[in-house]
């Protein structure tokens, strides 16, 4: 498949339906920052401040990608990821971990857990935006 067709497909898909992003973080500033940027780029953004809320929203909204904090009160990021993967409704949603846990072991654990990507805080905003765009394009192609 050529790049030309990729782009076309992406543009068509993007025009036909806005991509949905679910941002899960207990830190209000991070939620606000990600919401402002993704909305400006034309995404539909849902936010959750804790794990339970995140699992519910993922079911009802069925986002194209979930940006998931690891350390949260109550159910943490790993718990949320497991419950998403356990349900047939949500098991295909790509998940990006966004965490201040930056040691090699933690990053390795993150990738091992079945997340699609692991980004450490502080993050480069452009990097997260590009990553989400690429995942959305990829899911369109396979879907």
């Amino acid at each position, binding site marked *: 498949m050529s790049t030309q067709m990729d782009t076309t497909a992406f543009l068509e898909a993007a025009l036909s339906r806005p991509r949905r992003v679910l941002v899960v973080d207990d830190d209000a500033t*991070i939620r606000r920052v990600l919401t402002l940027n993704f909305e400006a780029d034309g995404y539909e953004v849902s936010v959750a401040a804790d794990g339970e809320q995140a699992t519910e929203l993922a079911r009802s909204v069925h986002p194209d990608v979930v940006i998931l904090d690891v350390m949260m009160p109550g159910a943490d990021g790993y718990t949320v990821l497991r419950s998403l993967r356990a349900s047939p409704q949500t098991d295909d949603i790509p998940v990006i971990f966004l965490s201040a846990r930056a040691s090699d072991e933690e990053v390795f654990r993150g990738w091992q857990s079945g997340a699609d990507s692991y980004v450490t805080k502080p993050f480069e905003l452009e990097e997260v935006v590009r990553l989400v765009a690429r995942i959305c394009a990829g899911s369109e192609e396979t879907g």
Partner: protein
Amino acid sequence: MTRRVLLVITLHLVGGMALLLGGNHDALGPIVAVIGFTLMFAVVGFIPLNLELRQNTHTITITEAVLVASVFHLPPTGVVAAAVTGELLVCLATRLRLLRLAFNVAQTFGAATVATLVFGAFDPIGPASPLGWAAALLAAAAFATTSMLTVTWVLTLVETSSFRKMVTVAATSVTITALASAALGLALLILASSAPAAPLLLAPVVALVILESKRVTDASAERLRFQRLYEASSRTARLSRLEEAVAVLASEARDLLTGSQAICCAKGEHGRWSGVIVDDDGTRPLDDGAIEALLAVTGDTTVELGWHQVPPALRAACARESEVVVAPSDPSNSGHVVLAVVAPHGGEKRNAGLAEVLSAFAGTAALAVSNAALYAEVEAALRHQIDLNRQKAEFVAAVSHELRTPLASVLGSIQTIRRLGTRLSAEDEEQLLEAALGQGARLRRLIEDLLLVAAAEHRTAQYQPELVEAGALLRAIEEQFAAASGEQRLAVVVEPGVEMICTDEDKLQRVLTNLVENAVKYAPVGPIELRCASTGTGTRFTVTDGGPGIPVQDQERVFERFVQLDQSSTRRQGGTGLGLHLCRNVTALLGGSLTVQDRGDGLQGAVFELTIPYLAPTSEELARPTPYRHHDGVRAAAPVVC
């Protein structure tokens, strides 16, 4: 065991009787000759000869020489009577225990009976004929063999070693005894028959042999002692646990002196003595009374105590009517040990070297004990280091996380403002700037906290005492809190009688603010009380909340670095996770104390109690390191990780 030995004795007596009576001998023979031979048996019984062959010492007796002489002059009953009476005299003179005496007499009885029967079978005319020689040699061999087998049998019972192995060892001795003793006996008889005084000619030679034998005995006994000491020392060199070391040392000391019981006491941590006693029933701890009694009779050197000298508290632990050899190690060395070996009273002639051996072994024992102590110390230090390393790793991870979280917000906000530019509403931009500033302040506060904790731990924090009025300080904190949170949850109570404190106001305020913030964080609703009262020597501040409280087992742990009972609350409340640890360290700097407990009276919540002395601590007091409590109770100076 005793029962089996008694069985052997009975067997000998009954068997011997049966053989003698069966032989139908009724005359003892000339009474003078019987008495003469009895005395001769007794005399030779006192002089055992030792012979060294290829590093093995063989004990031979010249009893057989007397036996050979007697069988030619006395009827069997006379020979047996003389031999048994002679042995009895020897046993009585050496004060053998009853069992041992009975055994020796029975054994002599049996052996002499067998020997006379063998001799009687030949019925030779005189010692000069070849038949006489053969009869004499065989009788001596029969006597020696019977003795040897009986002794070996009993030793097998007592020491539970292989009968066959012991027979192999004893066989050489028996052969030499039979040949040498019988030949000597015959030679004496032949000499006496030609000239009655002629046997005296052999006296110098026999005397020389006896003297030489004595030298050999001493030398071999000493070599044996050193060998056993060396073996015992090499077995105790690798002991790594004190309790194990003490038990093994007692057991080795007991074997070394072939005692019935042995005690090993060692000075452990904090100069506390502990000891064990070992005997046939196994190893058991020695009670404190007995240890004290033993130490009381222990001097600087080895002592041998008779039963009447043994203190009553120690007697209870020892077998009755025994002697105790007590050997202390050199108290100036690092490991201090007292060894005591209990041997049966009035036993076989005490070897004079035993005390020396025990004394030498005490030195080895002290070394083993000190090694074990060192090993334990190194192990504890290693565990402590591993623990510190783990804490350090956790600390670094926690600090990294705590720094990254606010930084992510700061950078994220600024990047958003630049990236979106005019697409961002003025209101959103303002909000983002505000958030960035707030998170930046949080970051700055964390860094300040880290530096202050490090400085407090290093004792390099600046300490500027001034006169502080506690009431005014508390009201300032109340106002500050109300302004920052817009809530009226904090109630300040100043009890009458609170005086001025001479302390560092900034740091005291920092601690109190932290405690109040901590209460707000963990008790999200309900009033918080900040109270101060006089203790007479200082001021006690209490911060009381109505939150869930802190479980008793965690009340000390909350003051450790980055310990949070509810990990998520830091993030939610924007705390640094250093708060209480910082409070504890800064309080120590102020010379005060900080603890937490439950509210009590069935009320939910925690009470933090901070006591600050009226007078500022001196620089000396400040220089003293804070005891740093660990989970395992090991106390060490606070680790340096910042």
